[in-house]
């Protein structure tokens, strides 16, 4: 009779103890140990996925740093959401993928990333200074690129020939003619990932750049408002293109990656072109599981719009880089410099098919991959480059540009509504 009661008390006491522990657990989140470098990157395919790891192992062996690595390889879209959750909890990795721009700026303003301006003295000279712009906030450097390039049309020359198109289009009306010719030859002209939205925003941005000029767009960026006719006209031209139905069947729900995504569609030769960055040839191979169009894959810059202020030497571009988390140990800078040694840059370019960021490209890449060479050639003539708008602008504004582009292409928004919608978000952001 008397036994159950003490047991009851013991349970109650244990319960209270658990409660206390839980309170402690929910009050504070433990911070990572100083001796572990956590590293999130988005290279989920070998050989590059392993190469990052090899860099870490080699450096650990060479240096006497008493640290370990926790390396996570995360798919692009998953990385973005995981990163934003991490940033909101204030616990960012020590080293992580960044595209620079407005997202990085927000992270800088929230003290989540380290200022590395004066930390990379041993190797900053090995990086082409012009590639650092997207990672520079108020004249301070917060990231380093390992890949840099521009967006343009990747096209299948065999399919173009089949449709009787001799030369890549140089003007917007040439381009529309090419679309018509491809359709007449029963070839899907363009692959587009409508569901991902960002691949579509390249079209609107480029049209705005070609009509109003890059300077006009940059002024809008500084003013925080899309004003002037160029932005409405860009929407009008894009609507006209969409009305021709140049995109693959089901593009509205297509993603960029994946077995039936934009990249795989071009990789399999099921569409003649895509407007995409320097990573397109590699993505085409990875996603389609084929060798892609191979030597038939060509590249041409976004055509000019007749009467517009822009030229084909103004590019939309950017690349991939790494930023350093606020709590990262100092040893990390030594590691970064290890990665940027010229022989290691060579391995990056070879294994990742990146577009080199080396200050002296010839020392890093003896003979670039044929597709990379096309991008390099385009870049060598570039007069100015604009970072992708969804990265350059604050996430809310970039997100609404992406969303509005999808709406415009699906005929759900007029060009005027597009501009209105973005401006509304932008004015709330200021």
């Amino acid at each position, binding site marked *: 009779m008397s036994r159950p009661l003490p047991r009851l008390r013991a349970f109650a006491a244990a319960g209270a103890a658990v409660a206390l522990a839980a309170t402690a657990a929910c009050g504070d989140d433990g911070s990572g140990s100083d001796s572990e470098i956590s590293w999130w990157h988005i290279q989920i395919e070998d050989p590059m996925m392993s190469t990052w790891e090899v860099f870490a192992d080699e450096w650990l062996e060479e240096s006497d740093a008493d640290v370990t690595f926790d390396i996570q390889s995360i798919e692009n879209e998953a990385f973005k959401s995981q990163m934003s959750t991490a940033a909101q909890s204030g616990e960012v990795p020590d080293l992580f993928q960044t595209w620079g721009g407005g997202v990085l700026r927000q992270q800088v303003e*929230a003290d989540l990333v380290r200022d590395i301006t004066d930390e990379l003295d041993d190797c900053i000279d090995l990086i082409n200074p012009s590639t650092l712009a997207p990672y520079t906030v108020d004249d301070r450097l917060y990231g380093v690129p390992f890949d840099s390039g521009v967006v343009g049309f990747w096209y299948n020359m065999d399919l173009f020939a089949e449709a009787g198109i001799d030369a890549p289009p140089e003007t917007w009306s040439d381009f529309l003619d090419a679309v018509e010719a491809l359709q007449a030859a029963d070839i899907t002209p363009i692959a587009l990932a409508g569901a991902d939205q960002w691949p579509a925003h390249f079209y609107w941005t480029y049209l705005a750049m070609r009509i109003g000029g890059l300077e006009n767009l940059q002024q809008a960026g500084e003013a925080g408002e899309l004003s002037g006719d160029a932005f409405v006209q860009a929407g009008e031209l894009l609507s006209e293109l969409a009305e021709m139905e140049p995109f693959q069947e089901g593009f509205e729900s297509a993603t960029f990656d994946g077995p039936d995504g934009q990249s795989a569609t071009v990789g399999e030769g099921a569409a003649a072109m895509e407007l995409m960055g320097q990573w397109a040839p590699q993505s085409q191979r990875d996603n389609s599981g084929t060798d892609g169009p191979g030597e038939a894959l060509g590249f041409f810059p976004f055509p000019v719009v007749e009467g517009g202020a822009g030229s084909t030497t103004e590019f939309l571009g950017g690349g991939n880089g790494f930023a350093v988390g606020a709590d990262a140990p100092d040893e990390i800078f030594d590691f970064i410099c290890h990665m940027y040694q010229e022989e290691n840059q060579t391995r990056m370019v070879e294994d990742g098919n990146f577009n080199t960021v080396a200050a002296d490209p010839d020392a890093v890449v003896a003979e670039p991959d044929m597709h990379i060479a096309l991008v390099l050639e385009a870049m060598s003539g570039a007069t100015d480059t604009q970072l992708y708008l969804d990265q350059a602008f604050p996430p809310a504004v970039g997100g609404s540009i992406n969303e509005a582009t999808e709406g415009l292409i699906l005929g759900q928004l007029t060009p005027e509504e597009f501009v209105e919608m973005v401006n509304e978000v932008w004015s709330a952001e200021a």
Partner: protein
Amino acid sequence: MTLSQTSRPSSAEGRLANDGGGNRSRRRPAGRPSGGSIAGFIAPGLVLFSCFVLLPVAFAAYVGFYRWNGLGGIPTDFIGLDNYRNILSDSVFIGDLGRSAIIIVLSLAVQLPLAFALAMLLHQRFPGRTVFRLLFFVPYVLTEAVTAILFGLVFSPRQGFADQLLAAVGIDAEIGWLSDRSIVLYVVFGVLTWKFFGFHMILFLAGRQNIPDELYEAAAIDGATGAQSFRRITLPLMGPTIRITIFLSIIGVVQLFDLVWVLTQGGPFHASETMAITMYDQGFQRNQVGYASALSIVMFLLSLIFALFYQRFVLKRDLQGAITGNAGNQGGRS
């Protein structure tokens, strides 16, 4: 609220009665636990509930009054009710409400009757009954993400199973299952039905099995037809189960996220977007954490108000039955 107040003493009595008398029920008056024990037992649950339910709700309510990108400590830019005003004029959110309403109506009109009919069928005795019960329940066991990836392949535009199936029976229609804005919501509903009808079916089946056979025998002796038995015995006695499944369906729609997110990302252009997707998009993709928090509070209030009203008015009799009348029923039957 009223539920927990009335339930404590009566459910204790019920349980004691279930124990069938014996010496344990006699011990109760003597062994009333001390205040310390009560506190000790309540504390873990209370702390966990506070940590993971009350505090986050309170924090979301607080953040909902700010414009905040979620980065860096605590929000500072107080904007009062602006977020809520924006929600009321947000065409996407208004659209979410409409789409949720469509899914709810379809669930009640199609999914639940289907589950009910299958439950009635599987209540009959026939060979292989267990196999069928298992088969119909299997989709519910899959996670929502796996289901969505599976149907993403089924509805894939170029080589998908759905198109090939149609082609195999001679229908060569190019249907944009997930890419046509006018049908994507119904396709999503189809997937939801596939996923969840088994769950409702099991609930109905359990409810049906609780109805004693004697009632049907008595009715049959009185000359009732099958239809009459169904209308006068089955339906009324399954009322509590039906009302609970309706409740679960509606709450489920308000919370709908993973399956739709993986399948369509809410697209094309919001055509299959749900409230939770709008919230996620704003909060985690556009760093509008203040606005997303306000959205979450609106969703919370919608669910709460609905749940309270439904419990107060629709489930009132069932809950009383479950709490106060349960022991009596069982006693009466045995």
